[in-house]
């Protein structure tokens, strides 16, 4: 019996601490391949903002609430950037059908965001996004500190509060 316990104990010890996992909140953004708006391959591990927070917003050209949210953020973007240095990354989840519309859509809108395409939904799956819009705040150390799924008018104010908190301004 003793030997079995000893065996179990040794096995337990041999499990490295790093196996004990973290969930989405407080973890880093998973490294996944996405495309730039011009179609070039790039990796989400290149997302950075010099220690300032990042907002990652999953949207699609056919998703009305997503567009309303990104329009609403765009109206405030200059102020938010001044306050916190935030950068907004908009991930288009448009698939093979509508991905060809994204580039002209974004340019016409005049959004000042970094826009990437995720047509195979690899990043969307890695971030466990079920529905659009889904908004994340990444703090200066690269950790996910806020998740919000759905958008109703006025939700950008909630996002702003969370952003100030993430930037240590509140």
């Amino acid at each position, binding site marked *: 019996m003793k030997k079995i316990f000893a065996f179990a104990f040794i096995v337990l010890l041999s499990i490295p601490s790093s196996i004990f996992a*973290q969930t989405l909140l407080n*973890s880093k953004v*998973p490294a996944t*391949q996405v495309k730039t708006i011009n179609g070039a391959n790039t990796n989400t591990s290149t997302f950075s903002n010099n220690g300032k927070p990042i907002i990652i917003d999953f949207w699609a050209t056919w998703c009305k609430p997503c567009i309303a949210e990104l329009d609403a953020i765009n109206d405030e973007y200059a102020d938010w950037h001044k306050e916190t240095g935030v950068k907004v990354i908009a991930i288009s989840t448009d698939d093979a059908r509508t991905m060809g519309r994204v580039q002209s859509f974004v*340019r016409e809108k005049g959004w000042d965001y970094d826009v990437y395409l995720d047509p195979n939904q690899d990043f969307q799956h890695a971030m466990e996004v079920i529905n659009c819009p889904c908004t994340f705040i990444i703090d200066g150390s690269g950790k996910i500190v*806020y998740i919000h*799924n759905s958008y109703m*008018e006025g939700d950008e104010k909630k996002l702003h509060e969370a952003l100030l908190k993430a930037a240590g301004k509140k």
Partner: protein
Amino acid sequence: MKYIYFTVVFVTASVFYAEAQILNGEGQLHGSIEVDAQYYNPDPLIGAPAVPEKMLMNTYDQLDYTNGKISAGIRYEAYQDALQGYDPRYNGSGFPYKYITYKQDNMEVTVGNYYEQFGSGLILRTYWQPALGVDNSLNGVRIKYNPAKGIYLKGIIGDQRYYWTQGVGLVRGFDGEINVNELDSAWNNIKTKIIVGGSFVSKYQAASDPTYNFPQTVGAGAGRVNITNGGFSFYTEGAYKVNDPDAINSDIFKTGDALLVRTGYSQKGFSLLLSGERIDNMSFKSDRTAIKNDLDINYLPTLSRDETYQLAAFYPYATQPNGEQGVDGEVKYKLPKGSLLGGKYGTDLDAEYSVINSLDTINLNDKATSDKGYTTKLLSAGQTHYFQNLTFEIQHKFSSDFRLVAQYDHEYYNMTVIQQEPGSPNIISNIGILDGYYSFSSAHTLHVEVQGLQTAQAQGNWAFALAEYNFGSDWFLGALDEYNYGNSTPDLRIHYFTVTGGYMHNALHITLGYGKQRAGILCIGGVCRVIPASDGFTLSITNSF
């Protein structure tokens, strides 16, 4: 006993080695949960059948673990039993999706189930769309390799998910992409960006038909070019498939091809996008006897606008894999802020037109000889009109608290072809929509939609109204009514009334509804599923962690 100690030492050593070499990051466990349940009341008037189980439920639950170079995941699905409208072959539960991925520098290997897409998907796209009941994931091996700057290679092999089993066919594929600007650092700053790609896919299915000499191996190839220069963009992709008799093309021995062209110009406040598409005999499935959405290897995108408003999406188009050709054009313009019509916030204008016809074909009547079925005339539109849609949309923000969207659609819909119901009328409809949002305060907002669809065919005119109230920023209450006031049968002038309420907090989303749902078609990306009429309670829960 010696063996046990040996094992312990070996396991310990290897785990530490693994930790140092591979699991060098911090372990992360992510997941998501989705539950959709419905309680059904029979309602013969709207065509809702009696459901013997009374309550049905679908659930999809994902768990992913990442540590350093390794990631692995698993998805549990249960259909107890499958919701109405889903194929009953889904009934049951299990783990249909499992994978392990190893990433190192310029290489990535996945074993198990995976989703992949080459170019626009004309010859390969596997994806998961639970709302449509589509999961054609490949089960096998995928390797991605980046041998030099700007060169991206992918190789795949596997068989496809078919409900709770795997399809009988084998799929093999290769894709190469060259990003010309990345090849040489000096080309990186050139304003013109060029990406070219090519792919090849072959499927194997044993054949032993007594009458037909079916090809066991069917190959398909595709090439693509993407050029952008500032606001200008051009994309084209062409695909070719050798003869592939299957249930969709009525077993003809004809080759297939597809061409997609898209070009546009855009700048802040203006965009123009023109697209054209021609598809001829491009159904590509890993089982030649499969029908509907089963075992699709490729994906044929639809040109027309992806309508989201309830009545504008009443008669949605579905891509015709046996043949179609069409064009689509869209112009958007923003009346600038501060201009007479732009007001304080600007006004967005959007106009789009698309038309899709049959191919111009000549029947060969060669069933007894070459059995190619037909030939087509290039650059000549067919006589049969499949679909046409003209849309105008205006969006104006009146103040920081109030904005309004108005949309008008004129649509032609060939029900005989699109719903494959011979003898159905061609539906010509006019649709008007008003969609308004008003904020009382940051935590109290109201969303109201009023829509009308006017047509002389099928069920006649429909009206739709929706009101949603969002309060306390986490809660919402909504009510909607869809009313078939123009039905030629007075008894069928039915109100489909539904109330919904929900709670949203962070990633959690709970929605409870009660009411009637009309029979219709749900389309996402040109792939459609029939939704049967129903009456009862619905509950939906989603969460990510």
